[in-house]
């Protein structure tokens, strides 16, 4: 038995310390293409005290600690660095409190996102953030990556629902940040520093989340287009008409055909693009908004707009949309997903640019995304064994990022930087901003043991 394992076994039962070659390979990746690493051990923790003991031990011995939930991240944030200890939090999965008077839920970090949503739904409430992987992603992972989802447009993202958290710091000490108050300006909003910190500043172990009343009514529509940019124009026009639907999801022809291959729900295969639109709220307001959205879609050139017959059909459409990224993997051996995001007024320009880049570099790109947020997922369908093509992919990717930045956009809307976007971060945020991030990191994790090499070096 390696030394490390023996040491850790002093404070964590041996059967929860994995170190066989097979186990290490099985924890060598997350949901990101082509990134692998091999840890020295994977430790399944069950309590905050165990997290503290493990982090303290690693700090004392200068061993890297990589936090991990279900491993569905899309920027390599939880891919282990070689020789690190993976701190796996899926077994810390207790729901601690549902407070219907204050509309909050208090959970351990390993609770599955969909479970939070189900519990809220059970008492007429809504937990809005709904990332594609919500049936398996952990809430801790969502907070660490500040995940988005299909409803960001109206309801915002994970950050907007975090009211408090328990965090284990880099020396193993424990802090509680936040509370159940809607208003709280006592000092810096420290919890916000940890949201989206990708496991580089601390290990989030417990989370207090805000819930909202579940909307009374919902209407789901599917608009079909013979031109991609007409869909983008529709989105810009809806926003400009001062309507905030809860969802405006875009799928191009390649993507919708892959989704249809899998889900078989009758999507229009001949369309160049489709928009999945959803309005929710008070029944009268929903009717009104939906009617206006249908009208705008038609004015912008939609060839057809269908309204979902019932809740089942609406759910099927949304569930199918959630599979878009994985379904695109049907096409080619390697699927590289991007996350470029622009202000919504610039969507049409961005969509045209992605099309043009794909054609110029002879690349197959499937594009889908949360168009209402300006958040696009141009996805390269390629083959990592074709080196010539991979070179073109890299060039195209850089051009797309540069263009997004030139439009006032960002390199990642919801997946995080991790390893995958690290090379592009300096250009996106500038040296001063990067320098500030590095100072913060040095202050909170002076030994650099927490998820080293992620976001920046």
């Amino acid at each position, binding site marked *: 038995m390696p030394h490390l394992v023996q040491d850790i076994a002093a404070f964590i039962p041996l059967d929860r310390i*994995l170190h*066989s*070659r*097979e*186990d290490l*390979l*099985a*924890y*060598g*990746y*997350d*949901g990101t*293409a*082509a*990134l*692998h*690493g*091999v840890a020295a051990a994977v430790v*399944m923790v069950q309590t905050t005290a165990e997290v503290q003991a493990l982090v303290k031990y690693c700090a004392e011995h200068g061993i890297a600690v990589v936090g991990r939930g*279900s*491993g*569905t991240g899309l920027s*390599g944030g939880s*891919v282990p*660095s*070689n020789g690190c200890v993976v701190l796996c939090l*899926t*077994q810390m999965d207790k729901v601690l409190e549902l407070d219907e008077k204050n509309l909050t839920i208090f959970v351990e970090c390993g609770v*599955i996102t969909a479970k939070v949503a189900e519990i809220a739904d059970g008492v007429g409430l809504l937990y809005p953030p709904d990332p594609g*992987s919500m*049936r*398996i*992603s952990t809430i801790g992972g969502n907070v660490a990556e500040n995940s988005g989802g299909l409803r960001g447009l109206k309801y915002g993202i994970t950050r907007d629902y975090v009211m408090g958290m328990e965090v284990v710091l880099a020396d193993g000490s424990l802090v509680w940040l936040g509370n159940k108050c809607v208003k709280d300006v006592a000092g810096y909003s420290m919890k916000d520093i940890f949201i989206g910190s990708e496991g580089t500043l601390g290990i989030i172990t417990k989370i207090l989340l805000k819930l909202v009343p579940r909307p009374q009514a919902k209407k789901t529509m599917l608009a079909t287009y013979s031109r991609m940019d007409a869909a983008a124009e529709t989105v810009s026009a809806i926003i400009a008409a001062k309507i905030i639907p809860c969802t405006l999801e875009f799928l191009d022809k390649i993507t919708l055909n892959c*989704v249809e*291959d*899998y*889900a078989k729900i009758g999507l229009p295969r001949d369309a160049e693009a489709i928009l999945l639109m959803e309005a929710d709220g008070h029944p009268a307001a929903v009717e009104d908004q939906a009617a206006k959205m249908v009208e705008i879609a038609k004015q912008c050139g939609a060839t057809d707009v269908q309204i979902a017959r019932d809740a089942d059909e609406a759910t099927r459409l949304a569930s199918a949309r959630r*599979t*878009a*990224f*994985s*379904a*695109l*993997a*049907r096409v080619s*051996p*390697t*699927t*590289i997903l991007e996350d470029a995001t622009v202000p919504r007024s610039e969507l049409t320009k961005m969509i045209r640019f992605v099309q043009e880049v794909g054609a110029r570099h002879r690349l197959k790109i499937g594009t889908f995304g949360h168009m209402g947020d300006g958040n696009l997922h141009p996805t390269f369908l390629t083959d*990592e*064994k074709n080196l010539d093509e*991979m070179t073109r*992919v*890299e060039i195209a*990717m850089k051009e797309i990022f540069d263009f997004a930045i030139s439009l006032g956009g960002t390199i990642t809307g919801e997946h995080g930087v991790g*390893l*995958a*976007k*690290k*090379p592009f971060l300096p250009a996106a945020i500038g040296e001063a901003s990067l320098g500030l991030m590095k100072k913060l990191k040095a202050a909170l994790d002076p030994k650099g043991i927490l998820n080293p090499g992620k976001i920046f070096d």
Partner: protein
Amino acid sequence: MHSPTIESPLPPSPGAKPIYLKDLDFGVLAQCIHCGLCLPTCPTYDDTKLERHSPRGRIQLMKNVAEGRLDVTKTFAEEMYFCLGCLACETACPAGVDYTRMFEEARGDIERTGVLNTESRSWIRGLLLRGVFTRPWLLRLIGRGMYLYQASGADRLVRKLALIRLAPKNLQELEPLAPRIRPDFSDDLIGEIETPAAKARARVGMLTGCVQDLTYSHVNRDTVDVLIANGCEVVTPRMQHCCGSLHGHNGEIEIAKDMARRNIDAMERSAGSLDDLDAILTNAGGCGSHLKHYDHLLDDDPRYAARAVQWSAKVRDIHEFLVTLGIVKPTHSLAEPDGKPLEVTYHESCHLCHGQKITKQPRDLLKLIPGVKLVELAESSWCCGSAGVYNITQPEMSMKLLARKMANIAKTKASVVANGNPGCSVQLEFGTRKHGSDVEIAHPMTLLARSYRGKRQCGFQN
């Protein structure tokens, strides 16, 4: 990749034996993008929350074996046999990963390298997979012996006198799992060619299976009765072989091929030729899933490849076939004596719902039966733990899954659990004994046949 890839430091292992996985097309292995959407549907991941026990974890290990970074180790082999092979991951996978193919090749590699070989394992595997399940006469002879053991009451006597403790430990543990063996086999109950009264709507080949034949031969008779009631001429070859799915799923690919060839030959002998059949039918979900893949299995056999393609094109699960044909509405009510509807719930065989994607048809057929009320079963497509021989090889996990299934069944308050696979039936019947439930386990064809006949019983014990 656009950012520095951390390369695995594990070097290729020197001098490894040739590996099936290594011959797999890169595309098959690369199809998995480890997104994790399969995780919540995997019974072994759900129970353990360990990545190695998940579909993408196993695929990652297989990929590492294929790329030479991992040997076929004992741990790898145990992992591949810890997998139920329920294929829930294939249903969940938007990317269309062919898990079945990888998993069968991996088990083939495990058997070729022999990492799990122990004297008793090799002996039992040799006896069952090579000895018994390749010889229909021997299988039936053993069945006859078991029937006599059970029918004479010797089984109860052995249990009562605790004589079972004299048997080897393995056998002691297996004995309670043993299903009730039927007094007659399919060949005794079904003629080689049976014709409907009127002009036939279709001519079909009927596969009687091995476990089905031994323990549920009446289900085969019921199936033929339903087919006759629907105007089909039914061709049932004599002394049929196991379809080979047991072998295919357990790393004996060469024997699986041999079984496939024998079944094609037998069907051709009885039917004249495959051209003379509109469909080849099975009422066992586990077999159907395998029978439909004879084309892949025999694609490198010049004598059989073309016939196997023809075979696969004609194989249909019985539910699928009846719905496509357009079923004649069953006539008699199966309502309870007090007039209340017979409450039936439906458990989905993994290889019917995940392997063949047949979920709606069995329910549609059950709903057609007068006096039957179909009650939905929570987690209907979650594996019951039977999984071929899994209940024998992995009793602990199997019994956990069975308990979960029985609890869900109890919640429906149904009096009948319909399901379309003999493996599930054996497991669920064991579940009723173990958990003290009086629910009846029945094949949808049995319920349909009862409705066509207008009485619960036919000319044979049911």
